């Protein structure tokens, strides 16, 4: 088997899942938009809703052109989808690149006669191929739908922009993989760049879009698919080639497993005397990067709270809703919506920590450590409980840091009326939603090794309902399948302790069921 086919086979399942989700969202939502925003009136109303700093920060600036259905689609979807395409690029590149190297797979291939050049070229080609497929599916899908106002140039730009964006972060990851000393570090840095670029443009899009141009997200914005269709903003994506070449420059000149920049590499032998200690040590970098990221997200959102007032008075729909009594306090309403979105983001590291149990299982380390070890010091129960507690701690601390960031960044804004205490209550409230997602994850993991992956679909689903549920009206049914449906919207309303307690108890029950199954099932 050629090396390229080996690579492709290695990531096949993940790539297909991602492509289904990514392209499914782009192509699947186009008709939804066509449905929801077809009349002039509906379009005017959504345009007005989105024309405020908070929404600009969240989804990008409004184009300076007629707000057609297609323009609305690309405006609301493009940056959010870019974020997902970026994660896709990072994950796949890291797993065929630095992670394969960390795991010794690369060394194995090289000892098997695959040259470094072939190896790297194939990694690059894989990135080109998977993003090309994303482009083709999106472009073909949007074209075949043949919706009104979705013109060909727009379809082309929308699909090409996202594919190039994914490719950019793919190559960036290969580059950092060659530069840095581990897959965890590479993932931490590239994901930070992806998120920070998003947050950066959130701030500058509101303040002055001229500064946003440093961020690749802004290149997508400036294409204005379906409006101006400015193809020149595809050009900056030539950086794809630059990072691919720079990555090769670094990779070809260093030892396998080597690095130019090391994480904190101390040579002292640490004494790790328990499984929790080991788990913490293995996930340390990941946990810290996520928590820091959550704090930054909180700060970023908090920094736009000052503009919320202004936008509400200038927004017909909101003002109307306020007058009609549907929304008591629009500022609170937005803050709450942002809280829900950050909750789902915090669920990602929490679920990842649970998923790490499978890494111990799949590498057979779990069964090796289990044998010959005192049951009180190591057992499947201990492993799962350790990851569960860590996961919940990270979820809770992540929520607290996010809301603390919001509080700190918006302290100077007078009329917000959310106290630190309210933020902490909200953190606790929404923490139970993460606990529920984690509980479902543990249940899936207890059922079988392979089923666990489905939890990512669920988290994606929660994100989708939380994010779009606020922009687009979704059927009640869809909301009922997420924990948010049951929790009170804290900051808008008083905390419902019974609801939060109920969700948490459900979370614990799900965990207990998962643990029960996990203790009995076959490993790996």
């Amino acid at each position: 088997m050629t090396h390229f086919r080996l690579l492709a086979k290695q990531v096949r399942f993940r790539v297909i899942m991602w492509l289904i989700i990514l392209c499914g969202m782009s192509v699947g939502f186009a008709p939804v938009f066509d449905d929801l925003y077809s009349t002039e009136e509906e379009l005017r109303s959504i345009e007005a809703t989105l024309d405020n700093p908070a929404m600009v920060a969240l989804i990008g600036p409004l184009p300076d052109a007629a707000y057609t259905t297609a323009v609305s689609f690309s405006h609301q979807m493009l940056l959010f989808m870019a974020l997902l395409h970026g994660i896709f690029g990072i994950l796949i590149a890291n797993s065929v690149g630095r992670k394969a190297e960390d795991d010794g797979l690369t060394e194995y291939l090289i000892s098997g006669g695959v040259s470094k050049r072939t190896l790297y070229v194939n990694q690059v080609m894989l990135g080109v191929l998977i993003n090309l497929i994303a482009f083709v599916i999106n472009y073909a899908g949007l074209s075949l739908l043949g919706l009104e106002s979705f013109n060909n140039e727009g379809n082309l730009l929308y699909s090409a922009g996202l594919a190039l964006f994914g490719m950019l972060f793919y190559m960036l990851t290969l580059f950092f993989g060659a530069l840095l000393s581990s897959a965890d570090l590479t993932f931490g840095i590239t994901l930070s760049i992806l998120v920070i670029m998003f947050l950066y443009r959130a701030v500058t899009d509101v303040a002055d879009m001229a500064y946003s141009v440093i961020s690749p997200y802004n290149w997508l914005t400036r294409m204005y698919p379906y409006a101006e269709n400015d193809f020149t903003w595809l050009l900056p994506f030539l950086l794809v080639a630059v990072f691919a070449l720079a990555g090769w420059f670094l990779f070809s000149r260093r030892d396998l497993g080597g690095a130019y920049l090391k994480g904190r590499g101390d040579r002292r032998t640490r004494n790790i005397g328990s499984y929790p200690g080991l788990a913490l040590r293995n996930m340390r970098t990941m946990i810290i990067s996520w928590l820091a990221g959550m704090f930054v997200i909180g700060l970023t959102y908090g920094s736009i709270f000052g503009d919320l007032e202004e936008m509400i008075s200038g927004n017909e729909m909101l003002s109307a809703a306020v007058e009609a009594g549907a929304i008591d306090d629009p500022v609170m309403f937005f803050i709450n919506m942002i809280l829900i979105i950050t909750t789902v983001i915090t669920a990602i590291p929490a679920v990842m920590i649970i998923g790490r149990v499978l890494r111990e299982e799949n590498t057979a380390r779990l069964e090796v450590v289990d044998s010959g070890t005192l049951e009180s010091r190591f057992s499947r129960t201990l492993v799962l409980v350790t990851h569960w507690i860590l996961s919940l701690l990270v979820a809770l601390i992540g929520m607290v840091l996010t809301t603390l960031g919001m509080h700190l960044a918006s302290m100077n804004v007078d009329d917000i009326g959310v106290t630190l205490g309210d933020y902490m209550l909200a953190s606790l409230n929404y923490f139970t939603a993460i606990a529920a997602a984690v509980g479902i994850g543990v249940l899936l993991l207890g059922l079988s090794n392979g089923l666990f992956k489905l939890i990512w679909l669920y988290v994606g689903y929660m994100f989708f309902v939380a994010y779009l549920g606020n922009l687009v009206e979704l059927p009640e049914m869809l909301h009922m399948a997420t924990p948010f449906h049951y929790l009170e919207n804290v900051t808008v309303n008083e905390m419902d302790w019974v609801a939060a307690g109920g969700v948490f108890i459900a979370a614990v029950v799900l965990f207990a069921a998962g643990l029960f199954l996990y203790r009995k099932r076959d490993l790996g």
Partner: protein
Amino acid sequence: MSILTLENVSKHFGKVRAAENVSIDIREGEVFGFIGPNGAGKSTTIRMIIGALKETSGTIYFKGEDIKKSRRYIENISYVPGDVNLWPNLTGMEVINFFMKMRGFKDVEMRDALIEKFRLDARKKCKTYSKGNRQKVALISALLSDADLLIFDEPTTGLDPLMERVFHQEILAARDAGKSVLLSSHILSEVEKLADRIAIIREGKIIETGKLADLSHITRIEYILSSEDDLSFLEGKSYAHDFRTEGGNTHLMVDNDKVADFMSDISSKRITYLVTEPPKLEDIFMRYYEDKS
């Protein structure tokens, strides 16, 4: 006394019958060889013993106790898998120390002696280790334990011959210290040197169990000889198989239980060259199936 007994243990993965009515019995203080080609069901059987897989049917007893009764039995088994994975960001020493801590084993001198014997650079991170080095870390960790039963699944696949010898010495030392050892392999000659008794598994079923010497009725050794006299008469003998001449040498396989006949037949000839090849697993299977049919 038996330390480990498997009674009609089966494991089915859907339609795949990875192990089928496997019965083996490992006695205290013996080295037990578990031999079979790739995919025969060795790892599956071992993973049922250590509780990673749940048997479809049958019972496993450790020191006479059904292992389903209590998970505590696992505290007395040390296990090294065929393909060792370690935590990439830990050094070899950190891994070995971790295992010692987890097992409550405190003999640091023994640790250092083993690291020395296996010539392991324990200061390096595990992600920089080759397969052989990862194997060494796991073997050292397994030997640093008070467990009564040591299980090694194809332990020497990544080791060079020198290290293989060190490993063999350690196995024998463990046995002399009263421990029992289960050693799986697809190479007969490897186990033959160490094992007091062996079981041969193929397609999930045990086809023979016993002392290797007692298994001479199913083993065959290859002889390579040359002589100034004509040896072609050997071709007609019932104990001779696969007779051929190659590069002036005569090759033939001789049934182990008929070696005496063979020797007396060639004693009158002027033999100028004689080499034997150890029995190979494939040859055993050849003879086993020839005998059956």
